[in-house]
């Protein structure tokens, strides 16, 4: 894995439907300055900047690395953009980390954002190319059939998705940055909302958010700030082609391979027991049980039982998404980076009201495209 690398600063904007008071540049700078402040540093202390956002059509911004270099203090420094659809936030953190693990730089600023209010994600994902009649309407239209197939294979009862939708929104009430805040959320409320892409109900989907997240990553020799660093114990990315005979879209091979790689690096053989908390990309509620299996927290077909038992709740033995997750805040390009940042906050002991007591090892996870890009890291309180 090369040189040691740690998270020494985390900055987030408050996630919300519309940030009409700032430009995209102002939005990313807000997150970047908060991360730098957390690390006790300024832009002058940063060697390189890595930025991630969702596909170009989302805001019609094609070269954010050029447009946002000024806002991110990157003049005269290496700056690059990462581009892996919904997993881009996670990949952005990993590309930034690799610059330190490879010994190229000492301090790297990683930033990801989305301003969903300036466009429409469903439009951007349903461009209706000529000659093609794919009939997929937005992300929900793509993922709904795979959720249906998960339910058929496992025989999971229909309310499992509802449980996740309620749990993550309850967690969000403890996170001051979370977008959806529904104090009265309960199963009846979720079940009373209409089916958008059956079997996905309205309240089983993620919101559209504006927001940005940033992290300062550091080598061991350049640590700064008074806080506890979150050390990277494992970092892995995988991808797979979306069209391939025999591809398992419910339990993708790339996700299993990515998890196996990151666990091997971190010395994890039993994720359910060894990992204290996980921030996992769950944009539709059913993806919690699906990823519980894909990531080896439960045997195949058993993920929904773990969810149903309450194990993934904040007071369960393996809390998933104590921040409220993607179901509560979804600035798409940033959503993966937020998972990675929240994992770091947990092991640094700075997650505030949604802190998992004594968290020492945490998983950050992101996926994107047609569940074909995966990015994961394991961060820990101790040096690897």
């Amino acid at each position, binding site marked *: 894995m090369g040189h040691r690398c740690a998270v020494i600063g985390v900055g987030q904007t408050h996630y919300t439907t519309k940030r009409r008071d700032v430009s995209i540049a102002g939005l990313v700078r807000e997150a970047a300055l908060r991360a730098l402040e957390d690390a006790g540093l300024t832009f002058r202390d940063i060697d390189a900047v890595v930025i991630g956002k969702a596909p170009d059509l989302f805001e019609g911004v094609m070269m954010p690395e050029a447009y946002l270099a000024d806002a991110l203090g990157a003049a005269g420094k290496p700056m690059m953009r990462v581009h892996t659809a919904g997993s881009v936030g996670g990949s952005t953190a990993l590309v930034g980390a690799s610059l330190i693990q490879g010994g190229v730089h000492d301090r790297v600023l990683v930033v990801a954002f989305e301003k969903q209010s300036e466009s429409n994600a469903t439009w951007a994902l349903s461009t209706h190319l000529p000659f093609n009649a794919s009939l997929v309407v937005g992300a929900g*239209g793509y993922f709904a059939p795979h959720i249906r197939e998960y339910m058929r294979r496992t025989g999971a009862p229909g309310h499992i998705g509802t449980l996740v939708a309620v749990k993550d929104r309850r967690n969000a009430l403890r996170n001051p940055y979370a977008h959806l805040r529904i104090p009265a959320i309960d199963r009846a409320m979720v079940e009373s909302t209409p089916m958008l*892409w059956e079997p996905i109900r309205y309240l089983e989907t993620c919101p559209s958010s504006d927001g940005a997240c940033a992290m300062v990553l550091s080598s061991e020799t350049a640590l700064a700030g008074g806080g506890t660093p979150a050390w990277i114990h494992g970092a892995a990315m995988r991808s797979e082609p979306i069209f391939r005979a025999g591809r398992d879209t419910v339990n993708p091979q790339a996700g299993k391979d990515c998890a196996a790689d990151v666990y091997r690096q971190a010395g994890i053989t039993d994720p359910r027991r060894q990992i204290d908390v996980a921030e996992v990309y769950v944009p539709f509620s059913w993806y919690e049980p699906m990823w519980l299996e894909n990531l080896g927290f439960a045997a195949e077909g058993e993920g929904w039982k773990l969810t149903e038992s309450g194990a993934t709740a904040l007071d369960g033995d393996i809390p998933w998404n104590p921040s409220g997750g993607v179901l509560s805040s979804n600035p798409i390009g940033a959503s993966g980076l937020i998972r990675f940042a929240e994992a770091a906050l947990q092991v640094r002991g700075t997650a505030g009201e949604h802190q998992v007591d004594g968290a020492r090892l945490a998983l950050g996870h992101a996926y994107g495209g047609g569940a074909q890009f995966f990015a994961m890291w394991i961060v820990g309180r101790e040096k690897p």
Partner: protein
Amino acid sequence: MPPPETDGPPAARHVLEFPGGYTRTTGPVIGRFLTELRAGRLVGVRTAEGRVLMPPLEYDPATGDAVSDEYVEVGPAGTVTAAAWVPQPLPGHPLDRPFAWALIRLDGADTALVHAVDAGNPKALRPGSRVWPVWRQDRTGHITDIAHFAPEVTRIVSPVAPEYRIQAGGALRVFLEGVRRGVFLGGRCATCAKVYVPYRASCPECGSAIDERVELPDTGTITTFAINNLPDPRAPEVPFVSAYILLDGADIPMIALVGGVPAHEVRQGMRVRAEWLPEDERTLSMANVRWFTPTGEPDAEL
């Protein structure tokens, strides 16, 4: 105007308009204010106590003292302190579309000016909103030299429309020509023996070139599906079913519309057949397949 004929007492419209309009001598304070307006400047006047009245008055309403002769340039922007929405403008109103009357405290002033704000909709304006004057081109020294106020520019629309010429590649053309004839063409990978449909030139699994073309039947099995409750221009109605259909003999499903069956009667494992458009309506397009419709056979094992 002759009195209209009514059953009640006689009534008539009567306008009391002094020919040419009344004249008003402005006095030095209001005169200065209007002269500055004509020049495109906004000035208030300082009171003996040091407050800036905007619009200026000759006598301080708080104390009755004459104001000083110090004129202070204020604005041009200001902050709305209160607003009332006018959904239907009347003749004589400054705007011919819905607008707001607002109290506007211009920057540097201690009192507020009443003027019209062209806000677009009532939600766009609230106490604290920032507004700017929109000046009339030909000014005469009148409060209407400011045509109206308008909210700050906070958003622009950026029209972006890159235009492409999309050419169906060689493999896609082969497939679409098949679809025009009413058959689905696939290709079998010689290395991994998988049959891909639509026909493609290389195998996504192993990268080998695919040379062998396979003609597939237009029947298959629904492996999974979504019931979409959101409208789509390509779907005939809402809800519509988009399904993964594994054609018989293929190793990869195609996504297609299912029709001829109520959405909630569609099942995983259901056997379906393509419903083709009449031959003379077909083009080089998947639209030649109207949808897949149940065959009535028993469901397949998944």
